C-alpha cells in the first residue's frame, strides 16, 4: 500500500514537473490545473459521469450476464466450447469504431449503442477467464468427487463453481474499465450527453485543461472500479484475483481447422439470419453476400479493394511497430525491474492501475503530445500494449519455481543468472498470453486514434464511410479488420503453443 502511494506521488510529481517545464507549449495541464478545472466544472462533469456511468453499468451487467450464460452453456455441453470461444473471439475482434456508427444507425438516438458497446467490450474479458476457471480444477479434486460415485452436478457444486470464482473476479475487474470505454466509444457516435461527448467537444476546441481533466477523471473512475471489484473479491475469496493467463485455443490440427471453418460458417449464418430476422434495411444493414459483392464483383469492386488495401497498409505501418514496441518495452521493463525488486514494488501497483485506463481517454492526450502523424499513433498503440504486457510479465517472473531458484541460490548465483535461466523462461507463457490478447487491443487503439485524431488508415476510412453513408465500404472494412485481428491472434496462438509445449506443457495438454 505504501509502495502504491509512493508510486502515485512520484507520478504526480513527474506530471506536474513536465507541465511546468512545457508550460510555454500549451500541451500539458498539470495536476493542479486539472484539479482547478475539475472543481470549477464539477456540475458538468458530474452530469456526464452519471450518464456514462449508468450506460457502462447497464452494459457491464448485460455483457457479464451473457458471458456467464455462455460459460454455463459451455459447461453443460462441453463440445460447444470451441464454437463458443471462436464466436466470442470474432465478436471481440469487431472494431468498435465501426460497430458504433452501425449500431447508431440501427438503434437510432438514445443510449442503445453505448450500452451495447459497453456489453461487447466486457463479455469477452469475462467469458475467457470464466471458461478457463471452470476447467481449472485439477483432476485429483474431481477424482475425489468420482470416488464417492457423484456426478457432474456435484463436481459443479463442490468444486468447479468455487474454483472459477477467482477467475470470474479477475474477469470482472478487467471488465469494469472496459465497460466505461465501450460506453464512451458509443457516445462518440452521436450521443447527446456523457464523458465521450465532452471529450470530443473539448478535443475539437483544443481546450487543454479540459482534455487533461476528462482523461484524468475517466482514468480515476476506471482505476476506482478496478480497485473496488478487486477489494470485494479479496474480501470474499481471501486472496487477490489471479492475473489470467488463459491457454491458447486448439492447435493447427485437422480438427482445429474444421473448428475454425465451423466458426466461420456460424458467423456468416448468424450475421445473415440476424439481419433478416431483425428486418433491417439492406441499405445500411449489409449481409455477407453484399460484402462479398462489394469486394469481388460489384462494378467498383477493384476501387473498393484498392481503397481498403491502401488504408490497411497505412494502418499496418502504425500498428505493427507500436505493437512490437509495446511488447518489447513491457517485457523489457519487467525483466529489468526483476533485477531491482524495490523499484518493482513501487512501480507495479501503478502499472496495474494504469492498465485499467480506457484508451480513448488518453488518445487525445497522446496525439497532443506526439502530434497527429505516425509518432502519435505508434505511441498510442505501444502504450495500449505496454501495460498489460508489463503486468503479465511481472506476474510471469513471479511464477519462477522457488525450488529451482533455491538450487541457483545454493550456488550463490547472481540475480542476472537467475533471471536468464529461471525467470525469463518462466515469464514466456505470460508474455505470449499478453501478446495474444493485445492483438485486438492494438487494433482498437489504432482505429480509435485514426478515427478521433489523424483521419488516416482504416479507422479514418471507416469514420469517413460512416459519415457519407458508404455502408458497403464500412462493412467491408469491418470484415477485413476483424479478419486481420483474428489472423493475428491465430498466428500468436500458434507461436505460443510451440513455446508452451516446452515451457508450460500443462497449459497445452488436451
Amino acid at each position, binding site marked *: 500500500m505504501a509502495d502504491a502511494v509512493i508510486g502515485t506521488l512520484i507520478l504526480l510529481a513527474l506530471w506536474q514537473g513536465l507541465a511546468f517545464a512545457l508550460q510555454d507549449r500549451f500541451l500539458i495541464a498539470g495536476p493542479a490545473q486539472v484539479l482547478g478545472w475539475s472543481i470549477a466544472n464539477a456540475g458538468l462533469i458530474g452530469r456526464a459521469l452519471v450518464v456514462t456511468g449508468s450506460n457502462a453499468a447497464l452494459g457491464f451487467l448485460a455483457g457479464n450476464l451473457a458471458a456467464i450464460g455462455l460459460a454455463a452453456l459451455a459447461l453443460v455441453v462441453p463440445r460447444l466450447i470451441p464454437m463458443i470461444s471462436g464466436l466470442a473471439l470474432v465478436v471481440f475482434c469487431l472494431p468498435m469504431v465501426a460497430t458504433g456508427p452501425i449500431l447508431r444507425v440501427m438503434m437510432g438516438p438514445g443510449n442503445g449503442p453505448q450500452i451495447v458497446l459497453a456489453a461487447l467490450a466486457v463479455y469477452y474479458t469475462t467469458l475467457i477467464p470464466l471458461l478457463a476457471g471452470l476447467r481449472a480444477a485439477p483432476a485429483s*479434486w474431481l*477424482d*475425489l468427487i*468420482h470416488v*464417492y*460415485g457423484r456426478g457432474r452436478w456435484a463436481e459443479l457444486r*463442490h*468444486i468447479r463453481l*468455487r474454483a472459477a470464482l477467482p477467475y470470474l473476479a479477475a474477469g470482472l475487474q478487467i471488465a469494469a474499465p472496459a465497460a466505461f470505454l465501450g460506453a464512451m466509444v458509443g457516445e462518440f457516435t452521436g450521443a447527446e450527453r456523457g464523458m465521450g461527448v465532452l471529450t470530443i467537444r473539448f478535443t475539437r476546441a483544443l481546450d487543454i485543461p479540459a482534455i487533461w481533466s476528462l482523461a484524468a477523471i475517466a482514468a480515476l473512475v476506471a482505476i476506482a472500479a478496478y480497485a473496488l471489484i478487486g477489494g470485494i473479491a479479496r474480501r470474499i475469496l481471501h486472496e487477490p484475483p489471479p492475473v489470467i493467463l488463459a491457454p491458447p485455443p486448439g492447435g493447427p490440427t485437422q480438427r482445429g481447422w474444421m473448428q475454425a471453418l465451423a466458426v466461420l460458417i456460424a458467423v456468416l449464418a448468424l450475421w445473415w439470419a440476424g439481419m433478416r430476422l431483425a428486418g433491417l434495411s439492406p441499405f445500411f444493414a449489409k449481409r455477407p453476400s453484399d460484402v462479398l459483392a462489394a469486394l469481388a464483383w460489384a462494378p467498383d469492386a477493384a476501387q473498393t479493394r484498392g481503397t481498403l488495401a491502401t488504408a490497411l497498409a497505412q494502418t499496418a505501418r502504425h500498428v505493427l511497430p507500436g505493437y512490437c514496441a509495446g511488447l518489447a518495452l513491457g517485457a523489457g521493463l519487467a525483466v529489468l525491474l526483476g533485477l531491482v525488486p524495490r523499484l518493482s514494488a513501487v512501480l507495479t501497483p501503478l502499472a496495474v492501475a494504469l492498465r485499467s485506463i480506457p484508451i480513448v481517454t488518453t488518445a487525445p492526450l497522446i496525439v497532443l503530445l506526439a502530434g497527429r502523424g505516425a509518432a502519435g499513433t505508434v505511441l498510442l498503440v505501444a502504450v495500449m500494449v505496454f501495460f498489460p504486457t508489463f503486468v503479465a510479465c511481472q506476474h510471469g517472473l513471479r511464477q519462477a519455481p522457488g525450488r529451482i531458484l533455491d538450487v541457483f541460490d545454493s550456488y550463490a548465483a547472481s540475480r542476472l543468472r537467475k533471471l536468464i535461466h529461471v525467470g525469463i523462461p518462466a515469464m514466456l507463457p505470460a508474455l505470449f498470453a499478453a501478446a495474444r490478447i493485445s492483438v485486438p487491443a492494438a487494433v482498437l487503439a489504432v482505429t480509435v486514434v485514426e478515427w478521433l485524431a489523424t483521419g488516416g488508415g482504416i479507422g479514418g476510412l471507416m469514420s469517413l464511410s460512416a459519415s457519407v453513408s458508404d455502408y458497403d465500404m464500412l462493412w467491408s472494412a469491418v470484415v477485413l479488420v476483424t479478419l486481420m485481428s483474428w489472423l493475428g491472434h491465430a498466428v500468436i496462438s500458434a507461436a505460443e503453443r510451440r513455446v508452451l509445449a516446452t515451457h508450460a506443457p500443462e497449459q497445452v495438454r488436451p
Partner: protein
Amino acid sequence: MAAEAGIACAGLHKAFGEVEAVRDFSAHFASAQTTALVGPSGCGKSTLLRLIAGLDMPDRGTVAIDGQPPERLRERGAISVAFQDPSLLPWLTAARNVALARKLARQPADPALVARLLQMVGLGQFAQSRPATLSGGMRQRAAIARALVTGPGVLLLDEPFGAVDELTRRQLAQDLPPLWHEMGATTLLVTHSVSEAVLLSDRVLVLSPRPAQIVADIDVPLPHPRSPALPDTPAFHRIEAQIRAALSHALDAA
C-alpha cells in the same frame, strides 16, 4: 452361488497410448484384510489402485468388489481413496475438507467424528486451518482423515505417508490400522517402503517393473495390533528380507 467377498481382479490390462501400465493382473484381496502393493517407481501401482476404485476403466479384464462392479459401491460411498497428492480443496478448512467426504458419500454430518479423526492424525489444533497454511505432511494426514471419515468398506491408500516425517509415520502406522480394522475395511496400500508394507499389512504383493505383474505374494503373519518395537524383531526382518529379495529378482529380470 454367493458373491465372492473382497476384491477380485481378473485379467486386468491397461495401457496409456504406447505405454503398457498393467498387464494381465489377477488377484483376490480378502475382505477386511490389508494388502500392500510394493514395486519400483512407475511400475503401475497407482494405476492398479485407480482401476480398482473404478476411476479408470481397464482396457481388458474386470474388477468386482463383493461381487459388484466398483461403480455400484462408489455410488453407496463405500470406497475411499487417499491419493498420493492430498487434493485438499484450498478454500475449505482442514475440518471442512474432512467433512466434505461425508457430504459426498450422502452420510449425515458428524463433527465429533471429524474432530476425533483430526485429533488422531495429529491435526486437532489445525482443524480450522486452510491447506495453504499446513505443511505437506499435515495435508497428507488431513487427506487420510478424509478417507477414513466415511467408514468405508474399501480403503485405497496411495503412498499415504510419502510426505510424513519418520516419527509421525511410526505413530500413524500404530494408530490407523486398528481404526480400519474396526471398520472392517478391505485395505489396499501402495508404498515404496518395504518396512511400511510389513508393518501395516497382512499380505504383500511384490510387483514387477512396468507393466505391473505379480512376482511374489508374501504373507505377513504378525499379530495385530503391531507394537512400535515390531520392526526390531527377527520375524519382521525375515519378511522384509523376503520382500527385498523378490524386488531385486524382479528388477534383475526386467
